[in-house]
């Protein structure tokens, strides 16, 4: 079945550094969603991208959907300790009806 690959699996940064996680699919995606899971918590929806080349921002977070709708990225500017957690992308192919989650990128931010 369609898989969504996410890299890196882990990232450790100093507070104030930038962070990016990437999500890739071998097939064209109809949409992609991003979720954040704090340590000990549950995944919480952040945003959804639908259009080719779409860019959305939430404060220090920038989300992009590739022109070919096969990849996406989440970029955090000037990380803070509150950004710690695991970030998941979840995508669905044009023919599919369910979201497939990537394996997540765990971000650790040290002060």
């Amino acid at each position, binding site marked *: 079945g369609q898989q969504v690959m996410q890299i890196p699996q882990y990232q450790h940064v100093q507070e104030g550094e930038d962070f990016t996680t990437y999500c890739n699919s071998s097939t064209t995606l109809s949409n992609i969603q991003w979720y954040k899971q704090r340590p000990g918590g549950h*995944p919480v929806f952040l945003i959804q991208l639908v259009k080719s080349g779409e860019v959305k921002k939430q404060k220090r977070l920038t989300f992009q959907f590739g022109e070919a709708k096969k990849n996406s990225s989440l970029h955090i500017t000037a990380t803070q300790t509150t950004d710690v957690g695991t970030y998941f992308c979840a995508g669905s192919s044009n023919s599919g009806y369910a979201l497939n989650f990537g*394996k997540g990128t765990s971000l650790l931010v040290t002060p």
Partner: protein
Amino acid sequence: DTAVSQTPKYLVTQMGNDKSIKCEQNLGHDTMYWYKQDSKKFLKIMFSYNNKELIINETVPNRFSPKSPDKAHLNLHINSLELGDSAVYFCASSQDQGKWNTIYFGEGSWLTVV
């Protein structure tokens, strides 16, 4: 009020036992899910129900049996528990089975099999 609530939050049990996890959502959603998250944080869908009907049944041992008495509830029963069943189990819901819907997760049930 918690939108998706599941009980128990923590469960420690011995191999071979049978246990259940209950889930309820008060969002009025039609679709509910069970996800399993292992120690590496991989989030895998197990089952999905839409209006009490099973629509997704991934490759899961038949020791796992979901039950949906109504569209607001989706319980998970596990027979003959094994060590490898230790994980966090998340119940979730969405408006319907459309792929553009946001998925709302419960707080998780941490199952440890000893």
